């Protein structure tokens, strides 16, 4: 009997859907808009994360050592820094390397090069370029240098300067922009998703309200709650599936266009992103479509069955 009942509910639900014409179209349109908003937010989050990561990548601090500083102490320092969890990446540039880089950079500037040749010693010191996991950690890293005993050679400090202090304002501001953008992005997504959910629920509720006389007739004929509710939920599932397929199709040209036009601006090709995450996005869309359809129908019809 259960299977027969299920079969009847599914057939009845599909009939409801296919024979309701305008109301089915209306609920698909609304559901598609909701799924479109959800997917757009996923895209925006992906773009935002990419941009924020790009910005983060651009932030680093360089520790310049005095010229003539003992190389082995600098390498010891590098080793000890590597063990710090805050540090993502650290590169050592020796004094010779720094000089070579300098020469290369100014290869067309004979005056400077001549002046350099006049000197007996290499005027440049070695340096360590440090990248932290998170921009907010530069402060503690730079403090580390002030407290560590590696950095002294006799009575003198071997550190010439740390450019964190020069860049502090910019780094701090970037850190707060990144954090703010993340929070704002999350809050906006939450609000938009909530609004579209409310609109979808209201639409489905309105459609079920229009069927309230029929629900009453079904009750009077002696149909049980499951048998009345079932077809509406099946219609909800169909609306969810159809709307998610439409959304998926819409996003193909949209992502191609965004990929062509906006890649430089966002820092990520959304078409490539769409292609490589297609399966996950497909599951998210179909999953949200069905869930929203089922839950809205269930609650919307609940009030008419209670009486």
């Amino acid at each position, binding site marked *: 009997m259960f299977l*027969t009942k299920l079969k009847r509910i599914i057939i009845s639900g599909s009939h409801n859907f296919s*024979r309701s014409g305008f109301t089915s179209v209306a609920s698909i349109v609304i559901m598609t808009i909701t799924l479109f908003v959800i997917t757009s937010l996923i895209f925006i989050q992906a773009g935002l994360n990419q941009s924020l990561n790009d910005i983060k990548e651009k932030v680093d601090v360089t520790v310049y050592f005095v010229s003539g500083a003992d190389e082995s102490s600098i390498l010891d320092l590098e080793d000890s820094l590597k063990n710090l969890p805050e540090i993502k990446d650290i590169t050592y540039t020796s004094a010779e390397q720094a000089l070579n880089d300098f020469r290369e950079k100014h290869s067309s500037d004979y005056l400077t090069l001549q002046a350099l040749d006049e000197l007996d010693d290499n005027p440049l010191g070695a340096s360590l370029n440090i990248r932290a996991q998170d921009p907010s950690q530069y402060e503690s890293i730079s403090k580390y240098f002030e407290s560590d005993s590696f950095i002294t050679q006799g009575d003198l400090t071997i550190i010439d300067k740390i450019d964190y202090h020069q860049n502090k304002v910019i780094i701090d501001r970037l850190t707060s922009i990144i954090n703010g953008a993340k929070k704002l992005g999350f809050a906006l997504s939450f609000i938009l998703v909530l609004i579209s959910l409310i609109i979808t629920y209201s639409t489905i509720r309105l459609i079920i309200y229009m069927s309230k*006389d029929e629900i009453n007739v*079904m*009750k009077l004929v*002696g*149909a*049980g709650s499951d048998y009345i509710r079932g077809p509406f939920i099946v219609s909800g599932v169909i609306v969810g599936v159809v709307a998610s397929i439409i959304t998926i199709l819409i996003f193909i040209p949209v992502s191609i266009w965004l990929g062509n036009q906006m890649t430089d601006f966002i820092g990520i090709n959304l078409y490539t992103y769409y292609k490589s995450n297609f399966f996950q996005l497909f599951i998210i869309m179909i999953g949200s479509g069905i869930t929203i359809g089922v839950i809205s129908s269930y609650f919307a019809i609940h009030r008419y069955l209670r009486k």
Partner: protein
Amino acid sequence: MIYFNNVTKKYSEGNTSLEEVSLSIVQGEFVAIVGHSGAGKTTLTKLILAEEKPSIGTVFFESTDIHKLSGKNLMKLRRKIGIVFQDFRLLSNKTVYENIAFAMEAIEKDEKEIKKDVPRVLELVDLTAKANLFPHQLSGGEKQRLAIARAIITQPDLIIADEPTGNLDPINTSEVVNLLKKINDLGTTVILTTHNRSVVEQVKKRVITLENGRVVRDDKEGKYML
């Protein structure tokens, strides 16, 4: 079969729809309930279906107090009653065939029985040729015959027809009344509410007359006396 014990129904203070109504209806009877609009006819049928609760008094279906039922038991009671409304109340998204089959599906009849019984009833109400049409494609008389078919398909003990001819022309009216008489002849109790004189005269059965919510006449083979 149906017993009203001193039933009063007030919708709000000063708006009394039924007042101290006591009556009983026996198995197999055909009862016409007549009265002007607002006399309380529809309220009476709604009380039997437990769509409304009495303010005072009790309504029994056989030995069960209808208004003490809830959930599953109420559903079971309603399955013993077939209803026909003035405004048909058909399921607009279902075909003629599906409207009738739905009533059987609702009470969990199996597919074999449905395939056997629905065509028979369609023939009884003369809608075989229209089985695949939707309600909006039918005339008023056909809609009402469909409603009757839906009401009788589950072989209920009681048929309540609330102003079934209210929206029909005289020819269709007479057809519908004959159909109800035929169903009554087969043993089903029928309660018919109407304010149509010719219907009452055609039926020639028991007539209960309501006026301002009170039973003013109850004639064994009544005439329309308003």
